[in-house]
């Protein structure tokens, strides 16, 4: 173009020597009550991050959601406002969240407030009282939030996908209906807390400007008295993906279609995991992937297509997701199937594999370079029975995966014949285009 000043072609500079992945040391202790505590030092800012993972599989989805919504609503000796104010004094906050595998209490604050944060965490864990008024307030808020979620295509298609692929498995329904929430009483929350919020099998991660051994001592002082032997539950393994007709969820008037393709995946510890991760990257797992370059950068069908391997305690799946313009819904599925078929039938080019490998290795470094990132990673690993040293093993597997390895796992896991496909959109406008490519079953949008 006219603006440039021509200086002749310039060559892309080579990369400098790679810095070896340095996994930070962790200290670990299992307390007498069964709580596993992991502490990692990263002193870049004078803060500390806490992640408490309590196994929460097979919990009634409405009660689980309400418990996480109200756990910080008060104890015998403190109101919700007092808890929040006491945390704030040390620059901290705590929040509770729940999914199909776990209850998670997360927090961050000034490192000088670590002891106080732990005391308040203990106060809630041992004394959450689920006061009637607060529960009632939070119940209404949660119902409203669910209603808002149910007006979002991304939420609706996620629900349809989970139901489609998990069938009768507990993972099939992860968001409660407003009616179910309405029925939850404080007594049920107290019972659930007593049964399932106990230290055995739970793990707490502490990351930040701390001496790990001292942090473990602090946790032991604050949480050593958290007791109660409750029930544990084991999740059955997820069912194998069942292929079948494309499920078209009809949402009249949609200006976009939400396309979701589920494919089989393997857990982090599987010998094929690194190769599958690389195959996923080459397909659609990062911006420089075939799928993104095709349906976004070449054809302009969509803004943010991406595919990701989701690891849960009971199994792993690969999900490819794109919101595409209504008028190109059929063509977008065609290109998606084409790219999956190409992955499954032909080996990747060596340079494509190298690029994906560098990305996978580089983003490991980036993910570990903040306190929050390190805390999330440590906790996710620990929740699946792994420790940070697994990172080094994983990096070595990424480095070692060959074109043949990636082609082999892609042939199995990315084959379009193994996919379960769900599309949410305006059926009247997109059904024919999709039916030209595959068998389609139409359902009205739920609920």
């Amino acid at each position, binding site marked *: *173009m*006219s*603006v440039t*000043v*021509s*200086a002749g072609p*310039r060559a*892309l*500079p080579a*990369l*400098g*020597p*790679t*810095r070896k992945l340095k996994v930070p040391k962790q200290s670990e202790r299992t307390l007498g009550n069964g709580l596993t505590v992991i502490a990692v030092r*990263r002193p*870049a*800012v*004078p*803060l500390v991050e806490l992640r408490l993972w309590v196994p929460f599989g097979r919990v009634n989805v409405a009660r689980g959601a309400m418990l996480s919504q109200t756990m910080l609503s008060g104890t015998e000796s403190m109101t919700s*406002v007092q808890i*929040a104010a006491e945390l*704030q*004094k040390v620059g*901290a*906050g705590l929040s509770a969240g729940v999914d199909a595998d776990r209850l998670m209490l997360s927090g*961050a*604050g*000034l490192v*000088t*407030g670590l002891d106080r944060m732990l005391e308040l965490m203990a106060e809630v864990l041992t004394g959450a009282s689920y006061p009637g008024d607060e529960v009632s*307030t939070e119940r209404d*808020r949660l119902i*409203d939030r669910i*209603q*808002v979620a149910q*007006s*979002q*295509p991304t939420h609706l298609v996620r629900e349809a996908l989970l139901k489609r692929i998990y069938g009768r498995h507990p993972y099939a329904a992860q968001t409660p209906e407003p009616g179910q929430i309405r029925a939850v009483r404080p007594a049920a929350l107290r019972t659930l807390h007593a049964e399932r919020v106990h230290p055995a099998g739970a793990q707490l991660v502490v990351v930040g400007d701390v001496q790990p051994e001292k942090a473990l001592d602090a946790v032991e002082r604050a949480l050593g008295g958290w007791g109660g032997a409750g029930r544990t539950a084991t999740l059955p393994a997820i069912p194998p993906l069942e292929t079948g007709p494309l499920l078209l969820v009809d949402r009249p008037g949609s200006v*976009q279609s939400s396309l979701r393709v589920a494919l089989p995946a393997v857990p982090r510890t599987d010998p094929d995991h690194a190769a599958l991760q690389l195959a996923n990257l080459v397909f659609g797992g*990062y*911006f*420089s992937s075939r799928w993104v370059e095709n349906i976004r950068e070449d054809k*302009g*069908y*969509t*803004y943010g297509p991406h595919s990701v391997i989701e690891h849960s305690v009971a199994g792993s799946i690969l999900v490819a997701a794109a919101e*595409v*313009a209504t008028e190109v819904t059929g063509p977008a599925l065609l290109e998606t199937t084409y790219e999956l078929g190409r992955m499954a039938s032909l080996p990747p080019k060596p340079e494509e594999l*190298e*690029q994906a490998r*560098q*990305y996978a*290795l*580089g983003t490991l*470094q*980036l993910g*570990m*370079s903040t*306190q*929050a990132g390190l805390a999330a990673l440590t906790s996710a690993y620990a929740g699946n029975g792994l420790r940070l040293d697994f990172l080094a093993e994983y990096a070595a597997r990424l480095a070692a995966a060959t074109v043949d390895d990636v082609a082999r796992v892609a042939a199995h896991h990315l084959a379009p014949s193994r996919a379960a496909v769900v599309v949410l959109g305006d059926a009247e406008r997109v059904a024919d285009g999709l039916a030209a490519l595959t068998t389609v079953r139409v359902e009205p949008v739920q609920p």
Partner: protein
Amino acid sequence: MARRSRIPATKYPVERFTLDNGLRVVLTPDRSAPVIGVAVVYDVGIRSEPEGRTGFAHLFEHLMFQGSENLEKLAHFRHVQGAGGTFNGSTHLDYTDYFETLPSNALERALFLEADRMRGPRLTEENLRNQVDVVKEEIRVNVLSRPYGGFPWLTLPPVMFDTFPNAHDGYGSFDDLESATVADAEDFFRRYYACGNAVLAVSGDIDVTEATELITRHFGDVPARPAPVRPDFTEPDLTAERRTSYTDALAPLPAVAGAWRVPDPITDFAGYLPYVVLAEVLTDGDASRLVERLVQRDRSVTGLSGYLGFMGDPFDVRDPTALLLQAHLPPGGDVDKMLRTVDEELDRLATDGLTDGELARTQARMATHLLRDTDAVLGRALQMAVLEQQRGEPGLLNDLPRLVGDVTEEQVRAAAATLRPERRATIEVIPGGAR
């Protein structure tokens, strides 16, 4: 007085220099992890878009990724990610940024990529049409298909402001986007993407001498072009309340946002800071004024937030800007009543002052948020680049927790006293959702 937590600070080193061509550079080394953040910030944003070209600053941001002097389309993405990094760009009211975070062995590559597009992006008809399509899908995802899409950052400015720069839709109309031409893009680049109008910041695992040498090598011969004169975007403050509403077909529940003008963040930083603190006193967590009152006690709202700047960016925005309060209401919620309660609480704060320890605990948590944002090398590079661009003071990043901590109760009370109904602009979302 309640005992207060000592507000900690960071001591990130800052090196600044300007190349002969006018490009300003900020370096902030930190060798604690083998990663770097690279940010290039151009002093042009939504407010500088010409009339008839709504959404152009953002569309142009997309075009900056579509190839450059020595790089084919797609090459930028591949070279960043193939070095183990991630990238993005974003368009704000007052600036547009481009950034990467990478393992530190990719420093020179990142500099090469940014310099190449600073010398000249490949502005072709094909890329323009492709990215117009992509941006339209982005708007569908983020605005048209989403309940409360664009609320309130796109819907409140036209209530509060009268001039095109401040009031128009920054995502743009499909008509304006579709009629954009390559010639428009060339003009926009020539005018605003001058190296004299840009700041480069590099943070993380770098050696200052080496980085300086590499920056000079790659950016030194970018042709010098001075920054354009930035127009005055000032508008008079409101003297009468403004209020409007619209129906959101997807939204199941009512929502409302109100905003008041605040002092100039650049020329009157000391006058501006108390408003930043006030927003947190009002809305940060269950122990804050308005959450306790409106959510817990009255149950008249279900969610509430308060922040400075239409994009929630208190330290990277210029005048005119605002303090915003945003709330979601339960079914049948009464917006008038909720606004009256807000007025009442503001009055109470202005008249009776804060409770013991209320200010100190709010400031402690603000310090945590500020420090957490700078923990990532990229967060540091981006913020320092904007602080350099707008204030010539990147090291201010280190001082922010302390400056926030120095705000007094008197200042917060005085700030609250200015948030009167007659200075307020309000937008209400009427639920059109079937449910």
